[in-house]
């Protein structure tokens, strides 16, 4: 988008599918973010060599994958012009479900239950947004508190421990040099990319993300797809919760309080435009890594953890402001 907008040359007629060259070109246009990430890593590494320690690196990857798994779902939502603020609630309920049933069932069944719960909570959000016609951010703000309330009631406000060592080994184990959640995150990001770019579902959601009325007039199943996006996103959030519970060896109501900020920030800083129509899974991966490295750097440098709130918010506003400025410039050029 950026590269095509800055070159005034006539745009050649394209096939329906983006060509490999086109994809690579778009990819290169986003490299500045990867550059920022590399520079940040090098700078932190110089200031605190402990950054490159394998223990610390795997810590960063864990953090990035918790945010990233949820951010994959959020990427689809934002690409379709929607938003979900109930991430923290969904994660809490799904994790508590895992912790509650683990003593009596297998790991597979527990994870499956968590994913089903994520899907159901996503369905609730989707129905509220599409059929009750409540603006997404406010409907999900309401359900955030509903889900949190449900989580607190379910646990009586206590922490539910996970004693199964197999579960912990499964969720925090390493696959070669990489932690399992990170591998799952990368796989999920690839799947998200393919879904967004190569499937009917992805094309539909990008279509109504960029212009809902046009999509409706074109006869696309907008309402159905909207609900489906919320369900898929709910499953992604629950997956994040599954790994988070394993890492914490426990689950509780406020385990993911304020998590929605991190997730949205990772997606938006990654380059997915907030007004919908486009989503970049690769950008989301970089965005998630960027925030994980940033948080880790602040910890290593001994900065008060409260600064993370300030920094996340400020980076998010800055990213959107830059995006708004750039897209408005492109619009002006297109009109002139």
């Amino acid at each position, binding site marked *: 988008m950026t590269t095509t907008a800055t070159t005034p040359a006539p745009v050649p007629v394209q096939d329906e599918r983006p060509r490999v060259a086109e994809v690579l070109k778009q990819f290169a246009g986003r490299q500045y973010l990867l550059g920022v990430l590399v520079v940040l890593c090098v700078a932190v590494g110089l200031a605190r060599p402990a950054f490159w320690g394998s223990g610390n690196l795997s810590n960063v990857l864990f953090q990035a994958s918790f945010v990233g798994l949820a951010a994959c779902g959020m990427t689809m939502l934002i690409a379709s012009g929607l938003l979900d603020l109930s991430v923290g609630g969904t994660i809490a309920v799904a994790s508590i479900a895992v912790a509650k049933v683990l003593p009596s069932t297998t790991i597979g069944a527990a994870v499956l239950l968590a994913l089903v719960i994520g899907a159901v909570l996503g369905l609730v959000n989707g129905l509220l947004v599409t059929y009750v016609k409540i603006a997404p951010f406010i409907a999900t*703000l309401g359900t955030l508190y509903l889900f949190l309330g449900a989580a*607190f009631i379910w646990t009586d406000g206590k922490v539910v421990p996970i004693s199964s060592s197999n579960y912990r080994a499964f969720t925090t184990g390493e696959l070669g040099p990489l932690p399992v959640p990170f591998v799952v995150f990368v796989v999920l990001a690839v799947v998200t990319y393919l879904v967004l770019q190569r499937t009917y579902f992805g094309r539909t959601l990008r279509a109504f993300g960029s212009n809902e009325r046009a999509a409706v007039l074109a006869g696309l199943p907008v309402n159905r797809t909207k609900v489906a996006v919320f369900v898929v996103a709910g499953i992604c959030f629950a997956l994040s919760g599954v790994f988070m519970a394993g890492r914490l060896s426990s689950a509780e109501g406020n385990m993911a309080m304020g998590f929605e900020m991190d997730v949205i920030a990772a997606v938006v800083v990654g380059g997915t435009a907030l007004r919908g129509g486009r989503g970049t899974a690769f950008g989301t991966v970089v965005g998630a890594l960027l925030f994980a490295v940033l948080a880790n750097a602040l910890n290593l440098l001994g900065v008060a953890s409260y600064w993370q709130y300030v920094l996340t918010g400020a980076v998010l506003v800055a990213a959107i402001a830059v995006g708004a400025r750039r897209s408005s410039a492109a619009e002006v050029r297109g009109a002139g």
Partner: protein
Amino acid sequence: MPDATLAPGGTADLVADERARSAELARRADSRRQLLQNAGVAVPFLIVLVLGLTVVPHFASGSNITNMLVNAAILAIVGYGMTLVIAVRGIDLSVGSAQALAACVAASAVNSAGPLVGALVGIAVGAGLGLANGLVVTQLRVPGFIATLSTMSVFRGLVLLFTGGAPIMIASTSFKSVATASLLGIPVPFLVAVLLGAAAWFAFDRMRFGKHVVAVGGSPEAAVDTGISVNRVVLLSYLVSGAAAGIGGVLLASQLGVVNGSVAAGLELQAIAIVVLGGTSMAGGRPRVVGTFVAALLLSMINSGLNLLNVPSFYQYVALGALLVFALSIDGAQRAAVRRMLEGRLS
């Protein structure tokens, strides 16, 4: 409007007829909307009031009434600001964090410079934060909800940095007595809320600013064409919302006597809930201060009723979430009813 150009002289009567008919429709749609808006808050208010009086023990005791009125007052004041912001199609999710920051700064200013200065500093901090929100929304062109979602996190971080995570005790008894004092049997914060409500009503209903708010909320593009400075109106709205959160924060500090960095968490949801429940449409252009005020009383009654019944505080989350979803459904139903009415007859 394709009226005059498409209708040559002979059909002038037809056009006039059509005009009258659509005016009549609009009037009926409006009255139906009014009904839904008023019923949306009045019916739950009466139900909760009756339930509270009959089911909840000590509901009508003097101390509980005072408590409810003070809580409702703080909520309502924040709600007025939110009413204004929602009326210009914005939203302010940062009110809770702004209130916490204002309360903590006010508390430490009271300790170092006296009650009056402390209160003024608190309000000024709130206004400054609101101004920051407004600038981000109007100058950086970040959508309101995401801008204030970010500043919610920023302000919360700032207040935690300011307090270092420790509570701030307020030494001044005169400052603390403001929230507990009463004039003619009515708590002072409640009087403040009523006065501010009257001022807000006057500003929205009788002043040019109010007309501008309605114009901007109804259709920003049309407002621009009319020559209204939309940015200025939006900026002022966020500023007022921040200042209202600041006033609420000062009253909260006075009520609590001890403040820390995590007070007023989740306030944004309560504020949005009372505003929407009060009949201010999320679609913009319809500020309803009286509704906000009544809804603040309603929410305060619900909270206090649940407390008195010893319901675990977790259920209050659920009650609040359900209340918000209910209010938004009413808002949606009301818009749908009006649309059906207008479209069903005309197209």
